[in-house]
């Protein structure tokens, strides 16, 4: 019993008292060590100049460990990717934990280490943080919120409203890997697959795409709601239509099979390491080449183009040569995958 208690997070760990300080020092500062955190001040203070991008996201994925990642890695990459999608170079992140009492300390440590590893890979620093512990049942193991800031290089103007007729639609790789990998671990649904989440930081990919051409019109990572929802958002925001071809959209055979079994359409399944880019036709080939040369874009493809007629609509040419509308996701297909 004594040992069991010692190993678990208790309400006192979030009280601001002695146990809380111990937790911060042992679990967080050790792993995330950097000069900003070491000061132990209430705010991180830093100098920045240029156009800033600022974003926030909360992570509630269940289970917290899944093939190819965990909630910590997701919380870093998710926010880093949101910054990258505005063309920004991600720099600093905040990290806030809401922990359900009883979480094994070892699991928390594993996740903090994973946060650190992910931050290193994404070349960002965790500069401020917070921990709260709530009663059993008030949260599900662990929720994380991260916010982030980054700097947008000169001459870059990326927005979901910039797509214009004639533009090409690029996708950085296969869709649906994350959603299906997480789902395969769900209680009551577990099925065996070799598939791993595609959870990845996209900052370097975006930076290299911008080197190939700074004229990128739109960038977005198709997370919840999948590719279909992202394309619909872009079509509506830019008041254009988007036409894609089913056979050009890369989907792994395992994802196709799992989707058939579960009754899902891969177009609606979440991704955590993919991006959609809408770029002028004349720049499409060089941007595609740059994408394919980056580790996280090696499966990139041009999947369609932007048209003027029927603004807001996404249409797909099927493998039979027919056309159909691709609508937004309605309701929740896969609850709590990020």
């Amino acid at each position, binding site marked *: 019993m004594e040992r069991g208690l010692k190993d678990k997070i208790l309400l006192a760990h979030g009280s601001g008292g002695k146990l809380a300080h111990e937790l911060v020092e042992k679990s967080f500062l050790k792993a995330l060590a950097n000069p900003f955190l070491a000061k132990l001040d209430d705010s991180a203070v830093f100098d920045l100049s240029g156009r800033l991008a600022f974003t926030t996201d909360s992570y509630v994925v269940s289970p917290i460990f899944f093939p190819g990642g965990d909630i910590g890695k997701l919380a870093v990459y998710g926010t880093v990717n949101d910054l990258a999608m505005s063309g920004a170079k991600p720099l600093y992140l905040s990290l806030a934990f809401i922990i359900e009492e009883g979480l094994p300390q070892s699991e928390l440590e594993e996740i903090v280490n994973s946060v650190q590893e992910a931050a290193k890979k994404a070349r960002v620093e965790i500069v401020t943080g917070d921990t709260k512990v709530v009663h059993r049942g008030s949260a599900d193991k662990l929720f994380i919120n991260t916010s982030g800031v980054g700097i947008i290089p000169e001459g870059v103007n990326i927005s979901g409203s910039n797509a214009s007729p004639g533009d090409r639609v690029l996708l950085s790789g296969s869709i649906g890997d994350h959603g299906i990998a997480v789902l395969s671990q769900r209680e009551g649904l577990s099925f065996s697959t070799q598939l791993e989440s595609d959870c990845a930081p996209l900052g370097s990919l975006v930076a290299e795409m911008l080197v190939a051409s700074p004229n990128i019109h739109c960038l977005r990572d198709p997370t919840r709601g999948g590719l279909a929802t992202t394309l619909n958002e872009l079509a509506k925001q830019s008041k254009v239509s988007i036409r894609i071809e089913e056979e050009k959209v890369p989907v792994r055979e395992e994802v196709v099979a799992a989707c058939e079994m579960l009754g899902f359409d891969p177009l609606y399944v979440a991704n955590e390491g993919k991006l959609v880019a809408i770029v002028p036709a004349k720049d499409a080939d060089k941007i595609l080449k740059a994408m394919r040369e980056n580790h996280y874009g090696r499966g990139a493809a041009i999947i369609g183009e932007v048209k003027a007629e029927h603004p807001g609509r996404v249409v797909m040419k099927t493998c039979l040569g027919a056309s*159909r509308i691709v609508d937004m996701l*309605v309701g929740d297909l896969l609850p709590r995958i990020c």
Partner: protein
Amino acid sequence: MKFISEFRRSELAEGLISRIHRQSRTPVRFMEFCGGHTVTIFRYGIRQVLPKTIDMVSGPGCPICVTANADLDKAIALSQIPDVIIATFGDMLKVPGSHSSLQEVKANGADVRMVYSTMDALNIAKENPTKSVVFLGIGFETTAPTIAASILSAEEKGIRNYYVLSLHKLCPPVIRTILDSGEVKLHGLICPGHVSAIIGSHPWEFIARDYGIPCVVSGFEPLDILQCVDMLVTQVENGQSKVEIAYRRGVRPEGNREALKLMEQVFEPCPADWRGIGEVPDSGLRLRKEYQHFDAELAFDIEPGPPYEPKGCICGDILRGVKTPLDCQLFGKVCTPGYPVGPCMVSSEGSCSAYYLYGEGFEG
């Protein structure tokens, strides 16, 4: 062999499509009975690639859509009984009954849980011995055997707090009713693949024999459907009417004997109420006497009150194949997947949902 991508290959599809175009001379109307087929047909745009001679109409093969409001109201009434846990497949949650949906009563505090299999429901019963678990038995011959298995397992393990609300429906009898009504003239039937995997192809023989309508059992990939249409066209053009299987990898003529045995052991046929069609003799399943202690309707005293049908909703006509969603005044305006009025817009296999999501009838 890859069992999915092989059945989506565009070059093979092209071959089948041009064969159908070459062969088809007589104007015909084919019905796909099954909602799963409806989804494939819309998702791949199959109607667009068929010749003008072939008119496709969707049938009543969506178990959620054909569940009558009076039956949905029973499920909702059961959810209001203290210490009752409703276990259901996820599709049922959003379906509107006369006054409410399971999703709404859940938000108001009823214990409604989504499960992926009947055995999950049985486990909930085992883990909650002081509560009663009611599984909503909604589905065709495909799901009935798994529910029968859960009842046999509960009996064997002495689980006494597990109940089933049996709203199962059987497919062949309802086809007979639709054909007898004479409302829709059919020249071919695409028979359901999963249902036939259980019951086999023999139960469809009467359609070919008594009504002279060609029948082909189909799988669910676009090439399956195209092959099935091709086989139907061949029968029509040769003046034949027989039952064929275009889904050999899933269906044997005699069906799945084990599954049928389970089903027959636990259930017996009874009349069932179908939305839009009414009562169809021998098209439902009720628990046999030996298993009646698992029957939720007998175990609990519920009085859901008279059912109410939403004004303007033509789901019933659509399920009989008499009208299409485009004939409905509510379609796409008042009734959308986000705010469905009728069940055909809720269920992923419903015709209205397929028309809406895949944009049948859109120009472009």
